[in-house]
C-alpha cells in the first residue's frame, strides 16, 4: 500500500464512571475500541478525531498484521502524505457506543446479567456519542482536538462536538451531512428498521439467545440504504440494465446486474453487522436535531460554537443534499463563525465522501495543512 499508515492495532479503553444518556438511561460502565495513527505531539495539540457513519468503525486507516486485506475505511484520506497527513497529525478512530465492532453495544455481554444487552441496550444519540468520545479524549489527555472530522452521521458528531464542547474543538470538518434529517430521510430509515423489526429471527432484539441472526431484515435494510447512497447516474453508469445471463428468464431470480450487486452487498453486510446496532444508528440519525431546543432555529443552536468550519457536500448526494449543507453554512455565517464551503461535483451520490476524488482531496488537504500550521509538530 502506498502511503499507508501500515500495520495498526486496535486498543480498548474502559470507563467505570456511569454515562447518563439523553434518554435518561444509564450505562454504568462501558468500553470503547479505538485506533490511533501518527504521533501525539508534546502539547497534545495535533489530535484529530474521526467520527464514523452508520456502518463505520474504529478501523479508519492501515491494516492488521494478520489481515493485510482489511484496510481501514478511510485509508485514501489518512496516512503519511495523504490529505490528513499522519506525519503531522495524531489521528484517532473510535467505534461508537452501541456499535458492533468492539465498543460496548447491544451484542456485548451486560456484566450485570451475564447475557447480551440485546433490546435492553439504551437508544443512544449523537450527543451521547460525543460525551463518550470526550471521556476517551480525557483519558488520552487531549484537552482540545485540532479537528473533529466526519461524513454523514459522522459529520453530525463533528458538529455536535462544537456545540457540546465548544472549547474542545478548534476545527470541524462536516462532510456530506445535514443539520437534521428530512422526513423523506427518516422514512428511508423507518423502512430499513421495519425490515429488521419484522424479521421473525429478530426476537424483539434478543435474537442472540436464540442463536439466530435476523439476516433477511438486515439484508433488506442494507439494500435499501445502498440505493440511497448511490446516485441514479452512478447506478446507470455502473450497471445500466445489464442482464447477467444476457437474456430475460421470466422468473424472479437475479437477472439484472444491479440486483446481483445489491443482494451481494446485502448478504455481505448481514454476515457481520449487528441488527440492533443498525436500528440504533438509524435512530441516532433521526434524532439529531440541534435546532430542536431552539424553536427550530439553527442559528441559535450554533451560537455556542467556537470552532472554525469546513463544510463539504457532493452534487449528486440526494440523501444529504448540498442544500442541507448550505443550511449549516448559513447558520454558521449568521453566527460569524469562520466557515468555508465546497460543493464537490461528483457522480457517486452520498458515497462520494469515501471516495478518492482529486478536487475533494485537494480541498481537504489545503484546509488540514492550514490547521497543521497552527501547531508545531
Amino acid at each position, binding site marked *: 500500500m502506498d502511503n499507508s499508515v501500515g500495520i495498526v492495532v486496535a486498543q480498548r479503553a474502559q470507563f467505570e464512571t456511569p454515562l447518563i444518556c439523553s434518554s435518561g438511561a444509564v450505562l454504568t460502565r462501558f468500553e470503547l475500541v479505538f485506533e490511533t495513527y501518527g504521533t501525539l505531539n508534546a502539547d497534545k495539540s495535533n489530535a484529530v478525531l474521526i467520527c464514523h457513519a452508520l456502518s463505520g468503525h474504529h478501523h479508519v486507516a492501515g491494516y492488521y498484521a494478520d489481515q493485510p486485506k482489511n484496510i481501514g475505511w478511510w485509508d485514501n484520506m489518512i496516512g503519511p502524505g495523504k490529505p490528513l497527513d499522519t506525519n503531522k497529525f495524531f489521528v484517532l478512530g473510535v467505534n461508537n457506543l452501541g456499535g458492533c465492532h468492539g465498543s460496548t453495544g447491544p451484542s456485548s455481554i451486560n456484566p450485570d446479567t451475564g447475557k447480551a444487552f440485546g433490546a435492553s441496550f439504551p437508544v443512544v444519540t449523537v450527543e451521547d456519542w460525543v460525551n463518550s468520545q470526550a471521556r476517551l479524549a480525557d483519558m488520552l489527555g487531549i484537552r482540545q482536538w485540532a479537528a473533529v472530522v466526519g461524513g454523514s452521521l459522522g459529520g453530525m458528531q463533528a458538529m455536535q462536538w462544537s456545540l457540546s464542547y465548544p472549547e474542545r474543538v478548534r476545527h470541524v470538518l462536516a462532510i456530506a451531512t445535514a443539520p437534521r434529517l428530512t422526513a423523506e430521510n427518516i422514512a428511508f430509515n423507518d423502512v430499513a428498521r421495519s425490515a429488521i423489526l419484522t424479521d421473525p429471527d429478530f426476537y424483539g432484539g434478543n435474537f442472540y439467545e436464540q442463536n439466530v441472526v435476523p439476516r433477511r431484515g438486515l439484508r433488506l435494510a442494507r439494500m435499501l440504504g445502498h440505493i440511497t447512497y448511490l446516485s441514479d447516474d452512478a447506478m446507470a453508469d455502473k450497471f445500466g440494465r445489464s442482464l447477467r445471463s444476457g437474456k430475460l428468464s421470466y422468473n424472479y431470480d437475479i437477472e439484472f446486474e444491479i440486483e446481483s450487486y445489491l443482494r451481494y452487498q446485502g448478504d455481505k453486510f448481514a454476515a457481520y453487522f449487528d441488527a440492533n446496532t443498525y436500528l440504533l444508528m438509524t435512530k441516532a440519525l433521526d434524532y439529531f436535531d440541534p435546532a430542536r431546543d431552539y424553536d427550530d432555529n439553527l442559528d441559535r443552536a450554533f451560537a455556542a460554537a467556537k470552532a472554525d468550519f*469546513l463544510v463539504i457536500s457532493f452534487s449528486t448526494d440526494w440523501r444529504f443534499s448540498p442544500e442541507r449543507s*448550505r443550511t449549516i*453554512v*448559513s447558520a454558521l*455565517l*449568521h453566527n*460569524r463563525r*469562520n*466557515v*468555508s*464551503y*465546497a*460543493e*464537490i*461535483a461528483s457522480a457517486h451520490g452520498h458515497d462520494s465522501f469515501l471516495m478518492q476524488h482529486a*478536487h475533494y482531496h*485537494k*480541498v481537504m488537504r*489545503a*484546509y488540514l*495543512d*492550514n490547521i497543521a500550521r497552527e501547531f508545531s509538530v
Partner: protein
Amino acid sequence: MNTHDHSSLAAARPDFAAIASWIPEGASVLDLGCGDGSLLRYLKEARKIRGYGVEISDEGIEACIRNGVNVIQSDLDTGLSGFENNSFDYVILSQTLQATRHTEPLMQEMLRVGREGIVSFPNFGFWKNRLNVLRGHMPVSEDLPYQWYDTPNVHLCTLHDFESFCSKYKMQILARRVMTDRYTITMVPNLLGAMAVYRFKRAPGI
C-alpha cells in the same frame, strides 16, 4: 498568490490598495467572485478585516482555502440568499461585475447584505478599447484579456454607463478611483482610465 506579501500584492493589483484605503480596520467584508482570495487575504493582513468570499470555481475554492480565507462555493447569479440583511459593512465585487448575468439584481443584493458596496471593473470607454473598436476589432488587453468567443464578460460598460446605472437604480456613489496601470487618473477618466473602482450605498430616502 500564496507567496505574495501584501505590499507586492498591492503593486500587482492597484485596485486592492484603493479598496483597502476605503475600508476601516476590523470591518466585515464579503467579496463576491473572490477568485483565489488574494483581495481578502490582503485586506485581512492590511486591515484586519473579518471576511468571506463567494466563488464558483473549484480552483478558486482550493486557492482560497490555501490562502487561509473563508470561502463559500456558490453561483452569484443565484443570489445571496444565504446572507442576512445588513450582515456586512462592505460587499465587494472586484473585476467581476462585467461577468455577472443578472447584474442589476446582484447590485441590489449587495446593498441588501452590505451597508456599502464596492465594485471595480475594466472601463470599456478607455481610449485603447475605443481605438480597437474603431479599427474594427473587439478590444483585447491586460484588463480585457479574452477573445470575443471565450470571454466570460457579458456586461461590459464605461464609467458613464455605470454612473447612469447607479443614478437610475438609486445608488449613491460615495467615492471613485480611476486607474491606468498604477496611476490614478483624474483628467477625462472615461477616456484615459483603464479601470475604475467605486464605493456606493443606497441613496437616502429609499
